[in-house]
């Protein structure tokens, strides 16, 4: 069995299983905790509307905060959108998903994907530099932050190398790229990468809690 066969076979299955298991573990682990009912009289009904609103309101900082964290949000968006675009609209990636969903969709030309990847990588390095330089972020960062950064960046680097054929051996390179994604998937449920799930839960929670009170959203 070559490394590529391993990456596309057992490694993929193990990674998906750990990924799914971990996500359910963590989500259910929190969801099944006790939560006392709030007995206070709500100011208004329909807290869930506030919850839904909360999902979107925090997608961009409020005006007074824009000068302070606007750039950080933009860098964040570049990383997230880049990740999304490359993942969904990169041809080999689309074909990978098409295999299970059973239909294909429009993809972006290779050159565009390469450009997006490079921009995303730059943004990732900017984010890392900020984490290392900014006193606040440096203080509150832990292993998880750097691990998550590394595991997110690795697929971009290996993917670009594969795309641009910079590996001494293409298949091994491709295998390393795929394995780097599995590593990301395996780590995903156990670190801060879970924020891709928590952000919905957390924003909804605050949005609905404060919708019933009024005040901040």
């Amino acid at each position, binding site marked *: 069995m070559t490394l590529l066969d391993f990456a596309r076979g057992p490694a993929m299955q193990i990674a998906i*299983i750990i990924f799914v298991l971990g996500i359910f*573990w963590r989500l*259910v682990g*929190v969801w*099944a905790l*006790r939560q006392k009912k709030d007995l206070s009289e709500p100011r208004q009904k329909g807290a869930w509307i506030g919850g839904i609103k909360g999902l979107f309101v925090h997608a961009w900082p409020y005006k007074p905060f824009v000068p302070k964290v606007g750039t950080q949000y933009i860098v964040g968006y570049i990383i997230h959108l880049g990740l999304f675009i490359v993942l969904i609209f990169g041809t080999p*990636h689309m074909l990978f998903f098409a*295999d299970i969903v059973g239909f294909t969709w429009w993809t972006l030309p290779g*050159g565009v994907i390469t450009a997006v990847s490079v921009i995303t990588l730059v943004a990732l390095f900017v984010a890392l530099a900020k984490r290392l330089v900014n006193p606040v972020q440096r203080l509150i960062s832990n292993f998880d932050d750097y691990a998550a950064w590394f595991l997110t960046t690795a697929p971009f680097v290996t993917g670009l190398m594969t795309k641009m054929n910079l590996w001494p051996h293409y298949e091994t390179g491709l295998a390393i790229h795929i394995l780097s994604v599995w590593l990301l998937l395996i780590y995903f449920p156990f670190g801060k990468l879970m924020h891709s799930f928590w952000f919905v839960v957390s924003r909804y929670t605050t949005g609905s809690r404060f919708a019933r009170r009024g005040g901040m959203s």
Partner: protein
Amino acid sequence: MKEHDLTLGEELRRQGISRRSFLKFCAGVASSMAIPAAMVPAMADSLAQARRQSVIWMAYQECTGCIESLTRSFAPTVENLIFNFVSLDFQHALQAASGDRAVEALKTAMKENWGKYLVLVDGSIPLKDDGIYSVSHGQTHLESVRELAEGAAAIVSIGTCASFGGVGAARPNPTGAVGIDQIITDKPILNVPGCPPMPEVMTGVLTSFLAFGALPEVDSLKRPRAFFADTIHDRCYRRAFYDRGLFADSFDDEGARKGYCLYRLGCKGPVTHNACATLKFNGGVSWPIQSGHGCLGCSEPNFWDKESFYKPLSAGQWGSAEGIAMAAAAGVALGAASAVMSRRNQDKISGGK
């Protein structure tokens, strides 16, 4: 004067082949092997000084496709000169002799050139039940290849079967077939995989052996780097379509007619190392992708067993839905268990207070 005593230069001149042809031949080989053009004169000189090489070509568990391909495509090319450079002392399919006389010729050639002859092999070797599944003249091929290898200067495995086991070794591999290098480990071995292999590779390898006295540089799968360093994808004329994201989605759609990339139709070009894209087959007429079909990856080990030829490379093995569902269920159980533990902890505190 015996043939073997003449140098190649003398021998060919006797046949009316000039040094210009020689030079031209070397220029052609150098071009295909990426040997610097400046070395061509030296190559031609050393080739002229070489003696005719004794070559024994054995066919084991095979289909004769390799030799068909090689002999037919040799005819109109400059490389056919190679047949003038070697003394093909044994070849099942091509020789006139058969039966005991053929075997005798083989024994003679081996004896006369012991330690010097070059063995070409096509076909895999069955190992199961002492190799009984493939026998010629009462001798299993396993014994045959061991015997021949003993007196060989080097061995060249021609085709994917001899290199990696090929179709004979495909699942479920009933005869326990393997490639030559799984059996012979103490001789220089070179693999020229491909189903069939490229004739130019054979020419290059033989020329290089004659001119430089050694097999050319090889990769990790013992394939000559000069031909197998790049992937089909690297040199494919449809690569530009891949880079621009233009693909054929079926064999008769607009994309296919426009000659778009065949990646989505399962082309294995990106993971296949061979020189088809530059050398092409049948004297440069065409090659699979030019004919509209994706690469099957025939020069790679186990290519038969890598799922469908028409499944895109990007496809992974998702595993069973049951497995994923079980993982989800296990995750739910673990989550619930941890929450129960936390709740119990809280109860303990409230109770204790």
